[in-house]
């Protein structure tokens, strides 16, 4: 194992999959000559050439659709959105064409495509650039959605996504690109299956269910809670769809108390689905009502203080944990 950044981990995943399979190509805005808007594709143009690392004009609908068409005849496109906020311009391709094709063609055309890029609020980008899209994409049958929080997960999930025979969305996070973590050496194949959560920290008093940007938040809060003699277990979903119910239920059966901390909005958010499944399946395991900590239900304000107030934060999470623990 060695320590690398989340950005490097993604870069390695791309390079390894491009190297392994000639049907894989990377396409998006500024992925080639500019080396990636967030430098995730740094060096790939030089290594793989313009046939496989392809700059596009600002035409999300156009190039997302191009990817779906290329996937119909067996190529395995990786389509980068500069941010998933811009994927909304390509919503029709991501929601209508990519996941419906397999059904509508009676199983003749599956779409092995990866859509990837940063997702969720970053820092003071305002309402149009701060969308957390995981809940609405996860609600579409035929799509898979994963949300890596660490460099290791980023590499392993992206590689798995590229090899999946279905459309997979890899929702990265701008604020995580420079974060560091331990990852297996490059000569060791790292594949992390979709639909497998990971307990990032063991605990016995409360399960904090999180994903993406809320994972580091939850880990910090867990350290803080330890000083107050509350032992929090941190369950990182890693994939929103498929959802690892088993891991969630195992943790909750052990701790009997749940806080879900999510980066999307509360109404029809990821936490609502998780909450429903827990109460339906292991109602008797619960010692307290489940609490969700999410964004406030408003478009993201630019003002820094207001933005902080909208986002989940340590104070809100600690308060929620104390509430479910009756502490």
């Amino acid at each position, binding site marked *: 194992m060695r320590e690398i950044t989340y950005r490097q981990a993604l870069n390695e995943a791309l390079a390894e999959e491009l190297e392994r399979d000639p049907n894989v190509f990377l396409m998006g805005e500024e992925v080639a000559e500019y080396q990636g808007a967030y430098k995730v594709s740094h060096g790939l143009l030089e290594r793989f050439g313009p046939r496989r690392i392809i700059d596009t004009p600002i035409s999300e609908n156009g190039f997302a659709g191009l990817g779906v068409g290329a996937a119909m005849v067996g190529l395995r496109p990786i389509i980068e959105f500069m941010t998933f906020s811009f994927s909304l311009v390509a919503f029709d391709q991501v929601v209508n064409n990519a996941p419906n094709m397999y059904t509508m063609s009676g199983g003749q055309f599956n779409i092995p495509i990866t859509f990837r890029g940063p997702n969720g609020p970053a820092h003071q980008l305002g309402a149009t650039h701060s969308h957390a899209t995981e809940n609405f994409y996860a609600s579409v049958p*035929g799509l898979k959605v994963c949300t890596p929080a660490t460099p290791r997960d980023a590499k392993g999930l992206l590689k798995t996504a590229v090899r999946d025979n279905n459309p997979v969305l890899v929702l990265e996070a701008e604020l995580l690109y420079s974060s560091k973590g331990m990852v297996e050496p490059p000569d060791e194949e790292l594949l992390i299956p979709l639909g497998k959560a990971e307990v990032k920290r063991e605990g016995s008093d409360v399960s904090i269910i999180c994903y993406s940007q809320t994972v580091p938040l939850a880990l910090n809060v867990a350290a803080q809670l330890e000083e107050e003699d509350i032992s929090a277990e941190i369950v990182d979903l890693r994939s929103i769809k498929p959802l690892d119910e088993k891991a969630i239920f195992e943790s909750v059966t052990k701790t009997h108390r749940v806080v879900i901390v999510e980066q999307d909005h509360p109404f029809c958010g990821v936490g609502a689905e998780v909450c429903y499944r827990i109460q339906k399946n292991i109602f008797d395991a619960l010692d307290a009502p489940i609490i969700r900590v999410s964004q406030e239900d408003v478009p993201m304000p630019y003002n820094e203080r207001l933005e902080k107030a909208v986002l989940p934060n340590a104070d809100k999470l600690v308060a929620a944990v104390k509430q479910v623990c009756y502490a």
Partner: protein
Amino acid sequence: MHPVEQRDEVEMLSLMLLIRRFEERASQQYQAQKIGGFCHLYIGQEAVVTGAVAAVRDDDYIITAYRDHAHALARGTSPDACMAELFGKETGCSRGLGGSMHFFDKQNHMYGGHAIVAAHIPLAVGLAFAIKYRGEDRVTLCFFGDGAINQGAFHEALNLAALYRLPIVFICENNLFAMGTSVQRSTSLRQIVDRAEGYDIPGEIVDGMNFREVRDKVAEMVDSIRKEPHPAFLEVRTYRYRGHSMSDPASYRTKQELEKYRLDDPITRLRAQLTREGKLTNEQFDLLDKRAKETVLAAVKFAEKSPQPPLDTLYDYTYANGAMEPGHHRPEEPAQKRREGAPSPNTD
């Protein structure tokens, strides 16, 4: 050998008759409520797809919008499978899961059947991208209506095709109406083909009621593309005799206008050309028409007696390599009730 010379014109006339009789029968079966949803008929436009398909190889890619029955038939999808799809049966060309607007036939390189106006044009560019990526000499034919040319997807797709020099012919089937809105009321240009010029794509106009004109122009474009990949644009002036869909009485146009086009009927026209040249007798034509009618009638019978898709396959076609729901399958597990003969996913 030039593909144009390979296709027998009498055979092509026979295909046009098959399309016409198929659509007439579909209309009747729709009214008898054997067919659900939306149903858009191709009657009047037969020379367009027939002419275009006559100009390409069987392994070239074709893709179209929702008025797609003819494109499947022209590509060689069996009338049985087409009619069964309209009936929603398991034997349909999309296993009864697509319906009238979503015909697919992988084997015959028919890539749909797409019902969101212009949303398939980027897909077509993707098919062409794959051709160039692999260094093949195939061509993609992308059909769409005049209603598609004011969608963003159309413009983005044309720009990408021109930028990357992709092997594709954009074929605009201009039947003068986007649903009930005439081209004059929807499009700022005097003629649709001028849209291509804006993207530096060579474009031409042909008479879509004339099989030979469509075929020869497409052949010329495809020929040039095979030598050196590039996009081309063809505006085909045509007319649909029926309404936009089965529920449209087409009250936005006059009877006189319809009659004018009926007199210019593409089937009548090719028949007259062939008769004049001594390549077809009246008896032969009647026989072709009789055969077309019989084929379509047999297709209705086939569709009627075909089974419904089984309920226990509901989750079989959501994810390739197995369902995720219900029963919370892990994605790597195969679906439990995958039936024999179920298609295997694209893994190459």
